[in-house]
């Protein structure tokens, strides 16, 4: 039993990482009706950006450490958001009118460019990078169940992010416009909503959430590598699909399910740990076969 609870905790952490990535996918899909396959790469780019910023700030030796960490996170998140909007400008906007296939391919290609770009241009980017930030190592245990400070912090941070996100979407004017656009693009356009602006803001928003996900990932696992975005993207997208593409709460549920499936596979299936992704994907394929609209997604009636 203790083992199960411990596994649930580790699965939950993994699940939150997936959920954060999946939320970006869902947000982008909801508003733009496109899948940004490079989204997970943007997330891990966030981690790399924060590493670069941190190196830069520590070199200046002007700020105290806690301020360096604070600035690092703020800058990294903003820079990643800007990179997200640049991607939108170059690789999504020109193809908005083309068939979905084109955007799909172009974003996959962007993913490649980001990944390989980090590998080539980041100093010795090919090897795994030790992430300089990490949570304090406090922990308390109750009858074998260990709960660490990092676990609690991750849950709190994820909660704050989702709270802020829902506040932004539900309470602000831009949030209202985003919701309108996700309901019906044409109608939104008729109502005088500046689509370009909305798309840009959405990309910025999704990328910033992604950056936080990337940084949390780095802090929790202590390592980032240029090609983590590949698997992260596929699993993140799977989680979004499972939850119902376009629904952020669905993305959370999907992410948590996949995280727990993976950690349980590693622990309880004999010799199963190399196959953990396979189990996750089997869950996804089953979902696509029997409930293509996902857990919380609405069934789309195709207009003929």
């Amino acid at each position, binding site marked *: 039993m203790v083992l199960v609870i411990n596994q649930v905790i580790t699965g939950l952490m993994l699940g939150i990482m997936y959920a954060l990535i999946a939320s970006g996918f869902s947000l982008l899909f909801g508003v733009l009706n496109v*899948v940004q396959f490079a989204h997970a790469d943007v997330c891990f780019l966030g981690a790399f950006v924060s590493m670069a910023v941190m190196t830069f700030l520590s070199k200046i030796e002007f700020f105290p450490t806690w301020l360096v960490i604070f600035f690092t996170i703020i800058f990294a998140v903003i820079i990643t958001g800007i990179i997200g909007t640049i991607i939108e400008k170059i690789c999504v906007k020109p193809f908005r009118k083309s068939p979905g296939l084109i955007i799909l391919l*172009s974003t*996959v290609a962007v993913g490649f460019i980001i990944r*390989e770009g980090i*590998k*080539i241009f980041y100093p010795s980017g090919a090897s795994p990078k030790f992430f300089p930030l990490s949570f304090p190592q406090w922990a308390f245990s109750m009858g074998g169940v260990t709960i660490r400070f990092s676990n609690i912090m991750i849950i709190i941070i994820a909660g704050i992010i989702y709270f802020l996100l829902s506040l932004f979407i539900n309470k602000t004017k831009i949030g209202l416009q985003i919701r309108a656009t996700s309901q019906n693009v044409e109608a939104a356009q008729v109502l005088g909503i500046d689509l370009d602006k909305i798309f840009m803001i959405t990309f910025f928003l999704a990328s910033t959430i992604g950056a936080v996900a990337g940084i949390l990932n780095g802090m929790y696992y202590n390592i980032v590598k240029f090609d983590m975005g590949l698997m992260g993207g*596929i699993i993140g997208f*799977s989680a979004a699909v499972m939850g119902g593409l376009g629904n952020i709460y669905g993305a959370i549920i999907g992410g948590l399910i996949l995280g727990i499936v993976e950690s349980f596979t590693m622990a309880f299936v004999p010799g199963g740990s*190399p*196959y953990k992704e396979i189990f996750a994907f089997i869950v996804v394929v089953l979902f696509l076969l029997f409930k293509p609209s996902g857990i919380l997604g609405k069934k789309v009636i195709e207009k003929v």
Partner: protein
Amino acid sequence: MDNPDTRSNYSQRLYKKIGYFLIIIVTEVIIFYMFINFLSLKGIDYKLFLFVLPIIAFFVLQRYQKIINFVKESHSQCNSFSIIFMILLLIFIPFLFKDNPYLLHICIMCGLYLITALGLNIQLGSTGMVNFAFAAFFGVGAYTSALLAVNFHFSFWLGILAAIIISALFGLLIGSLTLKSTGFYYALVTMAFQIIFHLLVNNLRFTGGSGGISNIPFPTIGKYSFSSSLNIFGINLPYQANYYYLVLAIALFSLYLAKRLYNSRTGLVWNAIREDEIAAKCQGISVNKGKLEASAIGAIFGGMAGAIYAHYISFISPESFTFHFSVVLICIVILGGLDNILGVAIGAVLLTVIPEKIRFFAEARMLFYGIIIIAVLIFKPQGLVPERIRKYNFLNFKKDSI
């Protein structure tokens, strides 16, 4: 055609025909010569002129449509001659490269990529299914024939047959699991399959794990082994020449089959599915059948190429069948031109040769592919050779029938 009996007409046609032949010979020799020199290029040297000049000439000629049209006309009028002449030139390649097996190796890889890309083109180009699992199809073929050859001592020829069957079944499996998923969902499922395939062959015992399968036997015909050097007219060709001719034959046959499929109802149905599934259904087209066919036939091409690859390299490991390879194949099809067989051929040759030539820049190979995809999508979404309208003039139907 209308008035064939006058003598002057006859001689005029003869001259015209000779003109066509000359043009065909000249253009094909130029292309061939460029290709050969590009292959043997070492770094940046004077031979680059050879590319710059004809390419400039080509762009200048663009302004003189008459010449272009005449060249096009001669190729379409004397279609079979132009194909036969090209084949003759291709047969000649091993003699040119007999001291340099590496270049021959590149040519073989061109052929294999071409066959594989033709298979992908059926799915991506004709049917509009963005398949990210094509490396897995390739891998299934390679693993099937390799495992049969190593464990059960199947001959290469039986192995390739088995590879075709198994990869077709694999294609059907993936096809039937993805029937309901379109667009992004299809892409996702195929990505998942690609990764599942890689994880499976990487971890299962019988596939040799990540160590792969080594010492895959060479194909033999009777007592003649493909690993011995080929002797034609007293000229000793390196052992790669055997594979070269094998791959050439199969690639040509694949091109022929792809062309037949394209020009038949099967190809039309695939296009209909790509354009509009609902309209296709309402015309009585079975979308599911079409998709399954595309999956299976595409997989056959991939599996066939994979089987040859396994026996040629004589070693396979999961590393050769990753997501990256799938993206390279997609890049080939997009660069060449979706649903255009000539385009795919050009794309395959270019994207095999160029990365070999920029090996010193090898670290950026995947970056290069990514940039190519984006650049092509932005600047030339149709690819190098755009998709063409099917013309059925060769069928000689009556146009005025009412």
